[in-house]
């Protein structure tokens, strides 16, 4: 079943880096965003009060930048799959022994690889430019980001399988993902939402992604964060299974 997986993944990595704008967008923009926002919120002028040592922004800038990377990966996956379908690339791959699962899996692997690279760039830049900010369990945090990205990507598979054209994929993907981010607890606590909305937010993967990242950032134990881990796992299982059902070659 995984025949061709590594080769296809490697080819897709090479194809991705041959488009310099895509690489800049994936690797450089989140870093710039992180540094700029980090500097901004570390300065007293922004909030007008003296911030305690360590992290000071109204929201966790590192989690924000990580969610930005994850969302970018998902939207990029949706765009690539819809372009591949519209351009008949999937149709050509169909006439080979490659399975849809292998094709999706390869693209997910590429996205996770660049998510990891983006995160590494973020950490390297942050250590230099935002001293003190990243004195957290970074390895654990990185795993949380990748795990969260994988789960949100599974929603991307389904979007990618359903949107009819590449031009339509961009707005549809954004329209689904961004509202999830808005009520994820990233910008304001979930408790600020009504009970119904809180329940709804807890069905969404981004909410659990933010919960897990926030928790790990604060030094929380993975076991203690099990509701978020479970939430992300369930979303991944359901949407992966669904995408195998709704996958369209053309």
């Amino acid at each position: 079943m995984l025949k061709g997986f590594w080769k296809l993944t490697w080819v897709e990595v090479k194809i991705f880096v041959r488009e310099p704008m895509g690489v800049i967008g994936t690797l450089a923009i989140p870093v710039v965003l992180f540094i700029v926002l980090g500097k901004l919120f570390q300065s007293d002028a922004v909030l007008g009060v003296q911030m305690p040592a360590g992290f000071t922004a109204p929201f966790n800038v590192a989690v924000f930048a990580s969610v930005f990377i994850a969302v970018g990966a998902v939207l990029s996956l949706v765009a690539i799959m819809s372009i591949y379908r519209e351009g008949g690339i999937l149709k050509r791959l169909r006439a080979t022994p490659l399975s849809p699962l292998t094709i999706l899996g390869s693209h997910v692997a590429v996205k996770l690889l660049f998510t990891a690279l983006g995160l590494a760039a973020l950490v390297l830049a942050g250590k230099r430019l935002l001293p003190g900010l990243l004195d957290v369990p970074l390895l654990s945090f990185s795993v949380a980001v990748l795990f969260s990205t994988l789960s949100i990507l599974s929603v991307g598979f389904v979007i990618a399988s359903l949107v009819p054209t590449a031009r339509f994929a961009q707005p549809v993907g954004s329209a689904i993902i961004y509202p999830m981010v808005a009520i994820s607890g990233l910008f304001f606590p979930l408790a600020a939402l009504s009970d119904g909305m809180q329940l709804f937010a807890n069905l969404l993967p981004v909410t659990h992604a933010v919960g897990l990242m926030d928790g790990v950032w604060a030094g929380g134990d993975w076991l203690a964060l099990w509701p978020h881990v479970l939430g992300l796992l369930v979303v991944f299982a359901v949407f992966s299974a669904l995408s195998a059902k709704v996958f369209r070659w053309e």
Partner: protein
Amino acid sequence: MEPVHPPAIHRNSMVSVDPKQSAASPVIEVVGLQKSYGSLTAVDGVSFEVQRGEIFGLIGPNGAGKTTTMECVEGHRRPDSGKIRVLGLDPVRQGRELQKRIGVQHQDAQLQKRIKVWEAVDLWASLYEAVMDTDLLLEQLGLTEKRNAWFMTLSGGQKQRLFIALALIHDPEIVFLDELTTGLDPQARRAIWSLVTGIRDRGKTVFLTTHLMEEAERLCDRVAIIEHGKLIEMDAPAALVTKHCPQRGVVFSSDTAGVREAVEGIEGLTELSAEGEVYTLLGTGDNFVSGVLDAISQNQIRVRDFRTEMPTLEDVFLKLTGHAIRD
């Protein structure tokens, strides 16, 4: 284009068929194929067989149902009804097994813009158990110099040659080629034609679609004419021409007197017209053209210019459907 590891390729017992038996047994059988998209009937009760080792062409105008028929045979589209067997397999239920034994070139399918030629070939080669020597394949398709070129930088002809390479890489028994030369210039088209006859000469079966009558006439051992989803005629191109358009034309110019009287009695002559010194004779039968030649020589007619006009598949199509194929 000899496979580099022939023993490996023929390891599968289903691949090696007794030549005596295979000569008579069809590799593709289609009976009563029906396929609709909503209210549009794309294929309406099509039946045909393709024999091992022949180039078989489905011809007809765009939208006639050629591609749908071909994709049903490949197992990439599920027919509404009808029976299809390809190499003895059911393309829908045994699709995965079938994909290993056929090579497919889709009409409108592309590759990743920035994939290099060698990467595409290498990726495809990694998907099959037994493959041809890819370097040799690229060389034979004239792509060696383009090994490191991105797909998006290739010309139309180079892209099609790459697609042929990908369709041939696992040395399939049947190669499906959908509108292979559409959009190519005449030179590139001719190069592709010789590649296709080369595939047949290696004992493979080729199933192609085209709306180019010249292509069908040059390439195909047999053609099936399809229009509005129905198969209206099927035979060797020359046999179709003889059957439906038996009339040949002879046009010559002469300043000798008495031409009209000299040719009037020729066997098979159906029409004679003269415009100044240019005479146009239409007639039927195998003896007609030699009858004209005999009359010219016996009557010592001085001929300045002489040509015959043979009907083509295009004329057959016009006669059978009442319109030209490019309409």
